[in-house]
């Protein structure tokens, strides 16, 4: 899932400077799960803004809404009537949702309310950790299910750096070196010979942005030349 965290309140206040009417729009999927931008967080931010404006003796008319997914045109249609009343939309969706919203309603001022952080797992209540850098060339079969691109800050493909100390990462000593984990997993599963091969440099042309993916069944429909 996509993991995001809400922007610091002063930053949100600053971005709303000069506007008197805003719709806070939540997203009911990833950012709701990571407690950053779902229906509940829309309500919380709305109250926080109301109090802050009250204290400053200023006025801000705040509307609240949450759609299932802001990254899907179908769900953005649901708010087409409500959105008319607001010149400014503060989106609590990830960066995808914010952009898609801005594209769908080009006459609106769309502002982000969260910082999109990473793709990660929900490890425990209130805890998410990054697991995938979306490099578009998955190495996990070769590395025992531990991603060297993500779990090693240097993204090293051929073993640990010399900074590994007591099995710990040079960058974050609280973390086990990714290559120690990879080595152990491959050893435990009898596949050490697979990590002994020199892996070639990553093909960054596969990560050129912005990426587009067209399912092969739909290539003709989108005139894609994949």
């Amino acid at each position: 899932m996509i993991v995001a965290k809400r922007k610091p309140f002063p930053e949100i206040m600053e971005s709303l400077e000069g506007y008197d009417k805003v719709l806070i729009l939540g997203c009911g999927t990833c950012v709701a799960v990571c407690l950053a931008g779902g229906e509940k967080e829309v309500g919380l931010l709305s109250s926080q803004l109301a109090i802050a404006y009250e204290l400053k003796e200023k006025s801000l008319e705040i509307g609240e809404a949450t759609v299932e997914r802001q990254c899907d045109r179908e769900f953005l249609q649901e708010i087409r009537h409500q959105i008319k009343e607001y010149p400014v939309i503060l989106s609590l969706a990830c960066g995808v949702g914010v952009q898609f919203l801005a594209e769908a309603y080009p006459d609106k001022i769309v502002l982000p309310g969260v910082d999109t952080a990473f793709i990660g797992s929900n490890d425990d209540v209130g805890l998410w950790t990054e697991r995938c850098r979306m490099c578009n060339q998955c190495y996990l079969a070769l590395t025992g299910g531990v991603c060297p691109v993500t779990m090693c800050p240097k993204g090293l493909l051929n073993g640990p750096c010399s900074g590994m100390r007591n099995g710990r990462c040079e960058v974050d000593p609280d973390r086990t070196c990714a290559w120690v984990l990879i080595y152990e997993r491959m050893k435990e599963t009898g596949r050490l010979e697979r990590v002994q091969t020199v892996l070639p440099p990553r093909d960054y042309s596969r990560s050129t942005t912005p990426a587009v993916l067209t399912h092969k069944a739909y290539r003709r429909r989108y005139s894609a030349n994949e």
Partner: protein
Amino acid sequence: MSKFRERLESGEFLVTVEASPPKGTETADFLAMLGKLAGRVDAINLPDSRAANIHLGPLAASILAKEKGLEPILTISCRDRNRIAISADLLGAYVLGIDTILCVSGDYVSFGDAPQAKPVYDLDSVQAIKMIRGMEAGEDIGGNVLKGTPRFCVGCVANPVADPFEPHLLKLEKKLAVGVDFIQTLDIYDLNAAAPFLDYVRDKGIKALAGLRLVTKRDVDLWENRRLPGNDIPREIISEVKEAPTEEEALQKSRARLVTMLKEIRASNMWAGAHITMEGHEDLIPQILTEAGLGR
């Protein structure tokens, strides 16, 4: 042929020194230090903004060292440059007469002056060494023909006391497989702990220079603030440095330890040489080498 390769092949006990280029454009002290080391050591390593602290670049520093009569070992770090920039630097270095390279992944940006910098690591050290060997064979990393090819003496870093050792060895094996000519190790403090590493390098027939550090108060401060990458400085050395009544006394103790280790390394006949780091005290090297019986 690289002069350092000639020195390696001579079979003599070698001494290399690591010296950071200046931070800024004032080169007088650096040049004076180079002058003192000329003729006294086999080569000088010019690191590439070591520990991600911004310094004058290693290629320029290598040229300054060469002009002073020293054999430079140019650090090629993967931290700040992609494969295109590294290739270009290598070709440039070669035509300027710099043909001994130490290839490293590079200390992470978080150690240094600009922790917000983009870490590059387009290549790792294994891939970079392989790329260098490819260039020597006449092709760039894209498979395009080079008009005139370089010939380098290429070294890599290893940590004889890496814990755990096996994953580290996995990487070292790959470096040797793609082709290195020598190893310079991280700073080591317990020579006995390096025995498995020495068995390995002897089996492989690769020359290794033992990394030694003159531990100063500054090093201890950096270490305690997690800004000194490398092996743990043993607790007793840290106490010794911290508890010495004056910085000068701390330095004398560290210096005596360094001399003892140099003698041990030389006497063991297991090492191809020593690779010494003594940040800011490089001018002491000729004297230390003399005390260790390695003076020239």
